């Protein structure tokens, strides 16, 4: 259940946490675009290190490494399918360049995960909801989104309690063949779903009794405004994009294989 800990809202303050979520999202999108522009290994390795100062300034190294660890499984699959399909495509002949290309595409995936996890690790769900709202997404959607995110840890905790309660009645989750194991989860899923529905109805009543949706134009206690740091990040992002485009258009990128042979 510790996987869901990441969703738990923590009020943390750092230069990165305080940045405008819209600008952070813009920055991550630029990294995303650049990662898609290149399919050579060298620039992708460089790109991997670009968000690092970000991670350290926000002080989220541990969580960041954990999310990278979580990506290892998928990365391995990407690497394996690339390598195998290249091998088959080239008529069952091995070459170093094949290996390099596969590593490069795996790295591209890792770069994307690294960049996006920085965004999610340093942006609270509330902030995200606020950003959505100020980007003129209808408030109902913003509210549904933030509520959903907010209740993930609550539900995870509840699932744990239900599991304990059923184990105390002799339920063994790990017993039996595959089908039996799936069925073992019914005594956990039903109370969980029932209580989630109950909770949502209660939430709806509580919201209505607090006049939810009375006025079309809600006002917010907190309003996102761009500050100096935000403008700085916009400039950095655009500069990154310009440099990347220049390299992409006019600098020949050597492969690591040729560099090693020199």
């Amino acid at each position, binding site marked *: 259940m510790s996987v869901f800990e990441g969703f738990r809202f923590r009020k943390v303050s750092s230069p990165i946490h305080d940045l405008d979520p819209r600008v952070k999202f813009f920055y991550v999108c630029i990294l995303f675009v650049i990662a898609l522009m290149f399919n050579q290994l060298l620039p992708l390795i460089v790109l991997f290190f670009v968000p690092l100062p970000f991670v350290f300034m926000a002080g989220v190294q541990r969580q960041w490494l954990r999310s990278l660890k979580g990506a290892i499984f998928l990365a391995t699959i990407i690497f394996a399918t690339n390598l195998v399909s290249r091998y088959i495509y080239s008529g069952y002949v091995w070459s170093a360049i094949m290996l390099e290309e596969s590593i490069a595409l795996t790295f591209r995936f890792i770069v994307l995960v690294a960049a996006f996890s920085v965004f999610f690790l340093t942006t609270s769900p509330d902030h995200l909801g606020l950003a959505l709202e100020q980007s003129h997404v209808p408030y109902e959607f913003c509210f549904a989104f933030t509520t959903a995110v907010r209740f993930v840890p609550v539900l995870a905790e509840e699932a744990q309690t239900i599991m304990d309660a059923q184990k*105390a009645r002799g339920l*063994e989750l790990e017993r039996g063949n595959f089908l039996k194991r799936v069925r073992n989860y019914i005594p956990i899923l039903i*109370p969980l779903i029932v209580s989630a529905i109950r909770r949502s109805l209660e939430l709806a009543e509580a919201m209505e009794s607090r006049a939810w949706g009375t006025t079309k134009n809600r006002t917010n206690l907190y309003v996102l405004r761009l500050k100096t740091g935000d403008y700085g990040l916009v400039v950095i992002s655009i500069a990154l994009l310009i440099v990347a485009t220049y390299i992409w258009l006019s600098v020949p990128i050597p492969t690591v294989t040729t560099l090693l042979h020199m």
Partner: protein
Amino acid sequence: MIEVKDVHFAYPTGVKALRGVSLTIHDGDFIAIMGQNGAGKTTLVKHLNGLLKPTEGEVIVDKVKTKETSVAKLARKVGFVFQNPDHQLFCETVEEEVAFALKNFGFKEKATKKRVSWALNLLDLEGYRQTSPFMLSGGERKRVALASVLAWDPKYVILDEPTIGQDYQQKEKLRQFIIQLNAQEKTVIIVTHDVEFVAECNPRVVLMTDGKIVADGEAQKILTNEKLVAQASIVPPQITQIFLGLADLGLPTDIIDVHEAREVLITRLEATS
């Protein structure tokens, strides 16, 4: 006998819930574990049926270390009724709900039927046999949860916050029921901060604060000790508060039972008149 030996426990999030707890529970004991929220009461009782394993120290249930066995095996001996019945009810009928654990423990069909009837009868649920547990009231659901645990006749019964959300009559029924269970040689452990309920039951009280046991003894001794009680953030029972306030009249201060209080007052009044 359940032995808890210098148990420490920390949750994966790093929260230290138990800091060196030692406790011996004898067969036939009736224990109330009390203390404020977050004192570690529920964490402690979750160790007794192996749902949690100590990070340090050990828990031994009838000579078996909980670290070396499974929850399912321990649960056969140690029945645990959770606070919120909605966390366990999932079957279509009350009957199936009560039979669920029996099937898990591998009871034969005939024995299962017999035990289900027995448990439903015991908790006055016979009329709801074919009803969906979700259609019942809160108090009834709690009784179904209790029946579903008592059905397999565990040697130890743990009740987590049994009085929450119950009205006075239900509480009184529950009290009589617990005392009846205890009289039948069952070891009963309740986790609660309902002081009045405990005062009426008069069990052995284990008081917890900050993951440690701060007092262990008769309810009458502990609940009338203002210092101890304040340390655990609970208040003495009302009747005790009255007698603590009348201490200057030379009345005893260790009273938790209303009937006893009546006797004391009558004797006193007769003496003065």
